[in-house]
C-alpha cells in the first residue's frame, strides 16, 4: 500500500506491503540502517525509535500505523536531549559491539525527554527492554544519570 511517513522531519512517500513493520521500511526502503534488527518481537529493543517523542519498537509497529506521526531514528536524534545523550555516551565509552546502542540511545533520549531526573527504578523500567549482550548496562545507567545532570545544569 502507498503511505507517507515523516522520518527525521522529512516526508517519505513509499509503497510497501501493508503489514510491513516500520523497522524494515527504515532499513530496506529508506536506507536508514542505524535502527537494528535484533529479535522481531519487541523483546530486545535494538530497533527502538521515537514516535511522537516516545520510545517505540519499530520491529512490531506497522509502518502504516506510524503515518501522521513524527518518527525519529538514531540518524535524526538531534536536539538538546539527543545530542547530550550521544555526547555523554561517547565520553563514557559506553558502547562495546555497539549493535544495540542505537536502541539504547533512543530509549535513553525518550526517557530523559519525559523524565529529566530518573532514579534507578525509572532507569530499570525504561531501559530493561533494551538487551545488551556485551553487558554495557553499568555504563548505560551512569551515562543516563550524567546526561540528566548535564541537561539540568545547562537549563
Amino acid at each position, binding site marked *: 500500500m502507498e503511505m507517507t511517513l515523516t522520518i527525521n522531519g522529512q516526508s517519505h512517500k513509499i509503497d510497501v506491503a501493508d503489514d510491513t513493520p516500520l523497522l524494515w521500511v527504515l532499513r530496506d526502503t529508506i536506507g536508514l540502517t542505524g535502527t537494528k534488527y535484533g529479535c522481531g518481537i519487541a523483546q530486545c529493543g535494538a530497533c527502538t525509535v521515537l514516535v511522537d517523542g516516545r520510545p517505540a519498537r519499530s520491529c512490531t509497529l506497522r509502518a502504516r500505523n506510524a503515518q501522521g506521526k513524527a518518527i525519529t531514528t538514531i540518524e535524526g536524534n538531534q536536539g538538546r536531549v539527543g545530542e547530550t545523550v550521544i555526547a555523554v555516551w561517547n565520553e563514557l565509552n559506553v*558502547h562495546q559491539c555497539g549493535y544495540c546502542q542505537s536502541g539504547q540511545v533512543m530509549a535513553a533520549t525518550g526517557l530523559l525527554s519525559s523524565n529529566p531526573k530518573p532514579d534507578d527504578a525509572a532507569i530499570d523500567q525504561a531501559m*530493561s527492554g533494551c538487551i545488551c549482550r*556485551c*553487558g554495557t548496562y553499568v555504563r548505560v545507567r551512569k551515562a543516563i544519570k550524567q546526561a540528566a545532570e548535564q541537561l539540568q545544569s545547562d537549563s
Partner: protein
Amino acid sequence: MIVKRQGLSRRRFLQVVAGTGGALVLGVHLPRPAHAESERPDANRPNTDPNVFITLTPDNRVEVMIKHLEMGQGAFTGLAMLVGEELDAAWDQLVAKPAPGDPTKFNHTQWGPMQGTGGSTGLSSSYLQMRQVGAAMRQMLLAAAAKRWGVKADTLRTEQGQVINGNERLSYGELAEAARAEPVPNPDGLTLKNPDQFIYIGKPMPRLDKGKTDGSAIYTQDINLPGMLTAVVIHPPRFGAKVTGFNANGADKADGVEGIVTFSNGVAVVAKDFWTAQSAAKQVKVSWDESNAERLSTSAMWETLKGLTNQPGLIAEQKGDASKAFAEAAHTVEMDFATPFLPHATMEPMNCVARVDKDGCELWSGFQMPTGDQMGAARILGIKPEQVKANVLIAGSSFGRRANPAWDYGLECVDIARQFPGKPVKVVWTREVDTRAGWYRPAYYQRVKAAVDGEGKLLAWQQHIAGKSVVSGTPFESALVHNGIDHTSIEGATDLPYAFPNTDFRVHNHNHGVPVQWWRAVGHNHTALAKEVTMDALARKAGQDPVQFRLQQGTNPRYNAVLKTAAEKAGWGKEMGANRGMGVAVQFLFESYVALVAEVTMEGDEVKVDKITCVVDCGLAVDPDIVAAQMEGGIGFGLGQVLFSTLSIEDGKVKQSNFQNHKVARMRDMPEVEVHIMPSAEPPTGVGEPATAVVAPAVVNAVAAATGKYRTHLPLMG
C-alpha cells in the same frame, strides 16, 4: 603416581619474548592448521611492515589496519593505540580500519599462517608487533624529514603527529609520500619506548570504533549493494535432518520474491528485501528426511551424564592416591554441578553477504577466522582460496560464535548465493533461526569430591567432568585433544591452584548430534564453578573462612593477591543482614587472574545480585578503561547464565526461540560493579573472556552464605 596430560596446553606453550625498552610480549601458541603451511615463507615472524598496516593520508590522518575482528572487545582502540604510541601520532588523527582477510599480511602471530581472533589473545599477541609497526613508520618519517631539511635524522624529534626540527615542523601527512618510499627498517633494530615515555599505553582513551552511537557504523546487517537480494532460511526442525523437497504454496510467485532454493541445510527464500522474504518463507512447507536426525532430550541427557560420572572415565590428571586419602579424611564434601547448553545469542544474529561469479567469490561478514572461512568457501565452490575476497566488517558481538570452525552460516550464504550468480545475496538469520541453529556451549555435568584433615589441611580432590567435546571433529582436534581428552573440557580444573597432595581428574565424553562450540570463557565456565563452589563448601565444612581457607592453600602469589584484594575492596566479613550473603570466587584463565565478590539478596528462592566487586590482574593494562569495560560486560554476560539462561531440547527440537524464552540479563538484573585493576609491569594478558566464568561460583557462594544451601545446577531461576 603422576599421570600428566600429554600434548599441547595453553600454559605449556607460553612463550615470553623479550622486547626492547623493557617491553615484553606473552605468547600463547595455538595449533597451526596443517594446510597452507607454505603460504608464508616465515610464518613465525610477525609481519611488521608499516606500509601494510599504516596509511598516512595527505590530510593528516593515520589509518591503521586492524587485523583482529572488532566485536566490542576494543580491538580497534587497543591495536591502534599501540601503533600510535610508538608513532607519536595525535589521538585525533588515528583512524582504525578492519583489515581484509589476507593471512599473508594479517596472520595471528601465534597461529601460523592464519588470520583470526580468539582465546582473548588479540591484544597480547599483537602487543610487540603493533608497537614495532608504529616505531618503524616513525623511523621512516624521520628519514624522510631529514632529507627534506638536509639534516641528520637523529637531530629530529616527533610529537603529536609532527616531525620537529628546532622551530620547524612537518606534519605526518605532509611527509606521507616520502616516508612510504623509505626503506622499511628491520624490526630487531628498532628502539621501542620505555614505559616512562608512554603517552597512551596505560591510559584510558576514547574508543576508536566510532559511529556506534549515531547509527553510522556499518555492520554486515547494514550492507546494501546494487542489485542485492536478501535470503531468509528455513532450517531443519531437528539437527541432522535433510531437506527432501518443498511446496512453495505460491510464495515463489509473490511480488519481489526472486527464487526459493534448497541448499545444504534447508531452504532459502530469496527476495528483494527482508520483509518480502520473511513473509514468503512463512508460506513454504518443507519436507525433511529425519532418519538420521538427532532425537536428544536434555532431561534424559542429564541422567546419562550423571551416570557417566559414576564410571571410571578417561584419566586427565592424577597425583598421589585420592581414594586412600578420602578414607582418612576428617571432612569430605561431595557436590554435583550442571551447566546447560547455551546459545551465544549475539545481538547481531548470524549473517553474511556473498557474491559468486565465474571469477570467484566476494564476501562481507564479521569474520572472526577469515582464513578458515575463505578456505571453506573455496572448497565448496571448487576454486582457490585466493579467489575468495573477504571484506571484514565490525561484528555485533560474537562470544565465540563467529569463530565457528565449520563456518556454518557463511558457507550457507555461499551455497545460496552460487545459485544467483553475479548477484550479491545477504543471508539474514532471524532470531529464531539463530537460537535454534546449534553450535551451543556444551552442557556439562560434574561430580566433585574433596576432603581435608582434622586441621583443615587439604587432602584430596576428585573431579568427574561429563559432556560433549567442542574440539573433536574440528581442525583443532589434533592439537587440543589428547587420548580422547579435549583440553577445553578440563581447562581451569587440572593444575589446581590449591595444594591438594592427591588429585584425580576424569573426563567422560558424551557424543551426540547437537553441534557445540566454544562460548565466551569456554571450559572455565564449568570448571571455575566446580572448583570455587567446592572449595567454599569445604572451607565451611572445616569451620574456616572461605577467603582465608583459599589464601592458606593457594599456591600462586598472583592468584592469592587478586583474591585478597577483592576481599578487602568488598569489605569481606561485614555484617550483611537478613537474607543477604556475600560470596567469593577466583580463577586463573586466559593468562589473567580474576577474583569476584558477589553480594546477593534472597527474596524467597529468587536471587537478586546487588553488587559485584572485581579484581583483575591482566599484566600491564594497555587501556584500563577497556579492561574495566570487559570486566563489567563479562560480568553481565556471566550473570545471565547463572540466573536465567538455559537451552533445552525435547526429542531433538530446541524449545527456546527468542529472547522471550531464552532469558538473558537485562538492565534491571545488573548489579553495581566495581572493578579494580592490579598494577603490573608484566606482559598484557587476556581480558575479553575471564570475568564471565567467575560470576557463577561467586553468586552461588553468596546464595549459600545467605541460605546455607549450595545451589549448583544452573540456572538458579531457570
